[in-house]
């Protein structure tokens, strides 16, 4: 038997990372609502690129790292390499992203060098994050299914940011453009596939396979289905990204699509087989994210069959980023934040007196309307993006911005114990988290 060490499984910077990520999400939405054009892969204006990277790096990548810093030590039963390294990831990504966003807006001027400079800082922050997670992952044998997805996601993250840095150089340094140009011909599609499909989606799948069964009391072992999802996805990404011929790439894309389909069926099984009849709001809201992923899959299929990627790209990008990834993130934060707050605030009092339940830190009734508004806005936005109705898309994103702000308020209330009934205990000294207590 082992004697576990006490405090090294809590990720101290995770709440602060979540707060920064939400700020970036709000900023990106505000920029679109204020008029920056939403566009697809074929139409990459500089302000649009700034918004897309605020979303992908500033929001989803930070959100994923914040979650993984807490999640991987739990799954592997092994601590992060260093808590301080988590702060390094947050600082380098935030600072680098600010440089990148400015660089995009200043493309064509000498200050455009901010783009590769900021991109380099982002890559450093991401490498620090990968290293921080690689240590506990390397110690764990055998690897659970969720950890395999996370490792695959991290590998594809590395590929994504390497390609991204090459783009940043090609866009701003003429010599680099000449050298890298041929290599980057197909690069935008690979960059997007490895980032959206690989890093984000594989990681989200891995985390969902752990979090959903935990709070719905559903079977945790996914058996052959889970392995089929993983194997098909890995085969797909290898063929789609490394396959030298168009036919191999197409085969790979089809395999990725099949893996996502298998995953969605497995998630339906997971909801069906749950032992807990009543589903908490965070997992009700997650259904909106899964439907978005299904719609994204259908859009990708339609695009592939009709050679209409240009037509489908804006709505596909929107539904994957806002519906699937942001939707899943916002919904799971509605459980993760109250849980961490409950631990920080009431852990010391457990067994020694009345303590509110985790559910008492939230008000599901008021948050339910916000989630409904968010996903309604996503549905309208996806349709508007498909039909090319820019004002409607802008309006939908304005609504999703308001919904995000209202959810952020609910997270903050949960964190501060706003809904906890009296007696409202004083904050416990020595909170394990680096975020101001009220």
């Amino acid at each position, binding site marked *: *038997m*082992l*004697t*576990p*060490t*006490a*405090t090294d*499984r*809590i990720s101290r910077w995770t709440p602060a990372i979540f707060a920064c990520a939400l700020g970036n999400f709000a900023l990106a939405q505000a920029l679109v609502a204020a008029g920056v054009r939403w566009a697809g892969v074929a139409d990459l204006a500089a302000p649009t690129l700034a918004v897309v990277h605020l979303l992908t790096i500033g929001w989803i990548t930070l959100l994923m790292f914040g979650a993984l810093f807490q999640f991987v*030590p*739990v799954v592997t*039963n092994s601590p992060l390499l260093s808590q301080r390294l988590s702060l390094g990831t947050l600082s380098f990504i935030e600072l680098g992203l600010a440089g990148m966003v400015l660089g995009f807006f200043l493309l064509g001027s000498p200050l455009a060098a901010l783009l590769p400079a900021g991109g380099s800082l982002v890559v450093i922050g991401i490498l620090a994050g990968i290293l921080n997670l690689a240590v506990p992952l390397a110690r764990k044998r055998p690897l659970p299914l969720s950890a395999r997805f996370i490792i695959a996601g991290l590998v594809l993250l590395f590929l994504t940011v390497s390609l991204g840095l090459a783009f940043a150089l090609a866009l701003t340094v003429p010599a680099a453009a000449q050298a890298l140009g041929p290599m980057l011909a197909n690069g935008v599609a690979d960059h997007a596939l490895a980032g959206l499909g690989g890093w984000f989606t594989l990681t989200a799948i891995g985390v969902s396979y752990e979090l959903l069964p*935990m*709070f719905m*009391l559903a079977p*945790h072992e996914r058996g052959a289905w889970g392995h089929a999802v993983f194997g098909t996805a890995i085969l797909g990404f290898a063929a789609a990204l490394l396959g030298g011929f168009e036919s191999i790439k197409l085969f790979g894309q089809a395999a990725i699509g099949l893996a996502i389909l298998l995953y969605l069926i497995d998630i339906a099984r997971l909801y069906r087989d749950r*032992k*807990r*009849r*009543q589903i908490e709001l965070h997992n009700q809201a997650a259904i909106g994210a899964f439907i978005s992923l299904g719609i994204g899959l259908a859009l990708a299929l339609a695009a592939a069959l009709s050679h209409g990627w240009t037509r489908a790209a804006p709505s596909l990008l929107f539904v994957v980023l806002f519906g699937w990834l942001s939707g899943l993130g916002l919904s799971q934060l509605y459980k993760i934040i109250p*849980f961490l707050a*409950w*631990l920080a605030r009431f*852990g*010391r009092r*457990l*067994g*020694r007196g*009345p*303590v509110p*339940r*985790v559910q008492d830190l939230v008000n599901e009734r008021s948050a339910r309307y916000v989630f409904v508004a968010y996903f309604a806005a996503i549905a309208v936005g996806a349709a508007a993006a498909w039909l090319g109705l820019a004002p409607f898309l802008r309006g939908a994103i304005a609504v999703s911005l308001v919904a995000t702000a209202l959810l952020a308020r609910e997270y903050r209330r949960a964190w501060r114990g706003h809904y906890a009934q009296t007696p409202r205990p004083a904050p416990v000294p020595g909170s*394990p988290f680096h975020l101001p207590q009220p």
Partner: protein
Amino acid sequence: MTMLAPLTLDVRDELRRGGEPLPRILEAVGKLEPGQPLRLLTTFEPIPLYHVLGRKGFGHVASRHGEGEWEILFTPGQASASETPKRQPDANRTEPVAHTDWPTPKTTLDNRGLMPPEPMIRILQTLEELAPGEVLEAINERNPVFLYPELEARGAAIKVEQRDDGAFRLLIRRGG
């Protein structure tokens, strides 16, 4: 002594919703008149509760009325009848309970099938009922990583191992 009518507490709905009714039960116990019994309706035999209330001087009589229908009558002043709760049979147990120099566990909590953080709440609540040096055994589905800082803060010692069936077996000794 005249027998007071028992106070009835039905926690079946809360349990079916996945809730943790122990705080409500303890609250109800606190509201009892002197000598008043508590009639508890649950979905399973609440063996750990026998121990918790046994320490408060309650004896118990359990009856099963059907699948997932239990009625337990806790009566004050009969502690001796319930001081040693019967351990739940556990088909998965492959080893003797105590293979360390620690005393034999006073109580075993089977926390499988409970939603986090209920296992942690149960463990800490039960731990607070133990005397210094006494040991609690718990079987958890997951490694309770958030429990360890709380145990350390309370001066409790812990040993943990993962069993072949994937569950985690914890031995927790209350500090002085």
